[in-house]
């Protein structure tokens, strides 16, 4: 069959083309100067990485690949050795990570704060108070819809702590009004916008969020809404594949005066989102 060889030939050419088109970018991006950083969806959604990573590349030569997951998942990724650095905001979980020997040192980097978001009509009547505990109690008493991230993220863990500080054992006392969706911050805000519910969010994601219709900040400023970020190098003794030199260089940049200044310069709508505090011993 004369046509058979040409069909096979055409096929093979197509395949080679596809392979070549794929291989070229892969070889161009030299594997040497890249690291994988496991961080959180809220940090990604805030836009910080879009702003910061090009600066990191210029100043350190490192191409940072960010995997954005919930805090719990990000730390697990570190535990499995699938990331070189973890960059999350749940101090208790981070200290546990340290205690397990999964990292040798935790560096505080920056903080932002949480805000309670709710419908503009504020059916639970919580706006105006700076006491997050009281606000949560009102929401529970009036059984107004509340969206929880439910994904073991830093925000989720912070939310659980806040219920505890309000004297509510949320696990036993929740009802149909409490909706645990197991997704990221953006999804939770979408859900709240669509169903007129309250939701705890970090300020950075909130400012950056594009679908605010019907929602506003109802409670802010309470000291308990403080959200601290920490960065850790995954222990190379446990995971030999970890790029410890590059990872440490990245961390060193973040906590350096220059890096701290760059972080502080990130703004959305004229507002600074993250407050550098690497030098704060209590952070």
């Amino acid at each position, binding site marked *: *069959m004369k046509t*058979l060889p040409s*069909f096979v030939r055409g096929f093979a050419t*197509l*395949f080679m083309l*596809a*392979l070549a*088109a*794929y291989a070229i970018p*892969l070889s161009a*991006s030299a594997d040497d100067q890249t690291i*994988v950083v496991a961080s959180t*969806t809220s940090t990604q*959604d805030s836009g910080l*990485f*879009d702003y910061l*990573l090009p600066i990191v590349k210029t100043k350190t030569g490192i191409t940072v*690949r*960010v*995997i*954005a997951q919930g805090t719990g998942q990000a730390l697990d990724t570190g*535990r*499995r*050795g*699938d990331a070189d650095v973890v960059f999350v905001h749940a101090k208790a979980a981070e200290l546990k990570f340290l205690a397990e020997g999964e990292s040798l040192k935790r560096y505080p980097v920056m903080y932002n704060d949480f805000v309670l978001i709710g419908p503009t009509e504020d059916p639970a009547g919580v706006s105006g108070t700076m006491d997050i505990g009281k606000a949560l109690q009102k929401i529970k008493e009036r059984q107004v819809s509340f969206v929880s991230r439910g994904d073991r993220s830093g925000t989720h863990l912070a939310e659980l702590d806040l219920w505890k500080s309000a004297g509510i054992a949320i696990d036993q006392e929740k009802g149909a009004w409490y909706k645990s969706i197991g*997704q*990221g911050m*953006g*999804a939770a*805000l*979408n859900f709240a*916008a669509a169903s007129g519910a309250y939701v705890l969010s970090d300020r950075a994601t909130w400012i*950056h*969020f*594009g*679908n*605010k219709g019907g929602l506003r900040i109802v409670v802010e400023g309470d000291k308990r809404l403080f959200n601290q970020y920490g960065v850790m190098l995954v222990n190379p003794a446990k*995971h030999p*594949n970890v790029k410890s030199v590059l990872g440490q260089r990245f961390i060193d940049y973040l906590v350096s005066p220059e890096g701290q200044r760059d972080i502080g310069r990130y703004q959305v709508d004229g507002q600074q989102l993250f407050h550098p505090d690497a030098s704060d011993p209590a952070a």
Partner: protein
Amino acid sequence: MSNTYFALHLLLTGDSALWDIVRLSILVSLSATLLALMLGLPFGALIALSRFPARDPVIIVLNALMGLPPVVVGLGVYLALSRSGPLGSWGLLFTPPAMIIAQTILVTPIIAALTRQTIEDLWREYREEFAAMNVGVCRRVVALIWDARFSLVTSMLAGFGRAAAEVGAIIIVGGNIQGFTRTMTTSIALETSKGNLPLAIGLGLVLMSIVLLINALAWGVRRAGERFAA
């Protein structure tokens, strides 16, 4: 809707970030489909032409595998490729090859099952003539695959369509890393979760155009095939 026009504008002016996403999507799905073809076609043809005790159960399982849930495949490949998994030393997690592997696993059963059906039907038709012409095994297989080429190409397009549209597997094993493992479907998922709906819609339109194109191609192939099949 201005952001949708913005997205289309980026596309038309060749914005590199956006085109990188489109290019990666096509590359990943195309590579997976071609690999699936190399694995699934011979396997499907083999099943079609052999007789062995467990044949019927094998065919049932093969057809069922066409409906493999992408997230399940994603999870499996993730665990396998993780550094603490059996294939961790390959270092493929969170890279495009991992995405190709996951999609290959999804598409291979489709191609194998459709190939088996097509070849078996054609074999039933040609069987006696082949016996009368004393056609050897090798020639038989090649002839069946060649004569069925239009249906097989249609199966391949179906496989590609499945790969191009899925997000569950590649978001898990690829990590949706900006500029590296972010595809059209994973971008849409991300932009939606960020509340960036107009941009997500814009990307969705691009993806739909590709899906439409594939279907148009499949239709064209089928029409071309009718010339010989009558």
